[in-house]
């Protein structure tokens, strides 16, 4: 006898039973014990067929290969730069992954990226001990200059971007700002000072109300005046 004990999009806390019996399978952020499936985080229930998953409502960013993130240079080493990823782990940006052009051996690396600079980079490797390599050698990856950086909860990034980028393009057009969202929860906004201010407020609003439906309409109303 298998039975589901929750509904789609229900909010569950750690240890809450989701389903009974072996007909259902534990997906992300769940575990099975004594014939029952339990949640492992605070989040929303997601039922896809027989698999039960939990979409976390909060929590640390888990580093994933292929993610575009915004990082800050914290150290310069022999072979490249060490960057802070806004997690418990720093990443390594190797000289060979830093630029399209050839960087000579005797070149001063701080002329290319100085300590304190922000960069848009992509994760190319994560080890089991969370040692991370990043690259800046692809289109769209670059050093950041000007604008402002806003920190949000990394679990809210998908809502800030929206379905097929609907939310972020709405904010971009309404505020005439250029916005880059890093998967690690750092957002870079650049535009006119007023636009930047408005875009920051809109993003913070999305973060706060992210669990509600029909959010794009709410944000459109919020930005409506312009």
């Amino acid at each position, binding site marked *: 006898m298998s039975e589901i004990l929750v509904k789609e999009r229900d*909010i569950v*806390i*750690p*240890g*809450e*039973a989701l389903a009974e019996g072996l007909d259902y399978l534990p997906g992300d*952020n769940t*575990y099975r*014990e004594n014939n029952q499936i*339990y949640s*492992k*985080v*605070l*989040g929303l229930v997601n039922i896809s067929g027989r698999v039960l998953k939990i979409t*976390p*409502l*909060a*929590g*640390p960013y*888990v580093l994933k290969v292929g993610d575009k993130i915004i990082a800050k240079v914290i150290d310069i080493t022999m072979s490249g730069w060490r960057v802070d990823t806004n*997690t*418990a*782990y*720093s990443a390594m940006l190797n000289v060979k992954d830093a630029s399209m052009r050839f960087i000579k051996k005797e070149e001063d690396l701080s002329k290319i990226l100085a300590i304190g600079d922000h960069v848009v980079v992509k994760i190319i490797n994560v080890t*089991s*001990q*969370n040692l991370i390599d990043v690259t800046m050698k692809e289109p769209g990856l670059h050093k950041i200059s000007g604008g402002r950086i806003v920190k949000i909860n990394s*679990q809210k990034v998908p809502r800030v971007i929206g379905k097929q980028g609907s939310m972020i393009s709405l904010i971009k057009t309404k505020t005439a700002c250029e916005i880059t969202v890093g998967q690690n929860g750092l957002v870079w906004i650049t535009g006119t000072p007023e636009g930047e201010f408005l875009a920051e407020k809109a993003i913070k609003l999305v973060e706060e109300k992210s*669990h*509600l439906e029909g959010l794009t309409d709410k944000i459109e109303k919020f930005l409506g005046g312009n």
Partner: protein
Amino acid sequence: MVYRKRFDGRTDEELRPMEVKANVIPNAAGSASFKIGKTWAIAAVYGPRELYPRFLQDPKKGLLRCHYNMLPFSGSGERMRPGTSRRGQEIAMVMTKSLEPVVDLSAFPNAVVDVFVELPQTDAGTRCAAISAASIALAEAGIPMKDMVSAVAVGKVDNRIVADLDYMEEHVDEFNPESKGQPVSDIPIAVIHNTKELTLLQMDGEISKDDLLSALRLGQKAIEQIYQLQKKALKERFVKE
């Protein structure tokens, strides 16, 4: 003296009035406020973040680190020496041990999750309030957890087995010289909700085996109320408008 009625008129298994809230400290990854009677604990969780000093780092899993502190004006109002004390360190240790079985930090090697608990006002049962608050704060911070931990104190006052002792009850043998010979026992317990396993079991005073077992049974029953409030506090923030 025979303890016929509890000082504040509660029944034996009745807890003091509680007020539980999540997300009280915006800067923290997760936070909670847990009030039970006059005892008030505020917990804040930060991390996972880099762990220093390095020799504490564990390459197999992250470290859970608790801090427990009573504010100088808590308690009776007499100023206490602020900062860590021997007692505070011990309570921080038992808090860590009672939360560790449910918290899963295997995804965060070499990192640390810090749990800070401050107590602005205390009236006995502080370590229980601290654990209950910390459990909410950890869940709110999105740390992977097997289950929630709830804590309450049980004990024997004079001839009665009661739940959630306050300061007066804990010290009844001092306030009332006639009750000498019947020492008060105060047993803080913490319980994992689904499995009903105990993760904290300490005791002051003395108690017989039978009384201890019935006290623990009473505690398991009383703790369900705390769990329900923890659950409510966590979900409250996400109700649809």
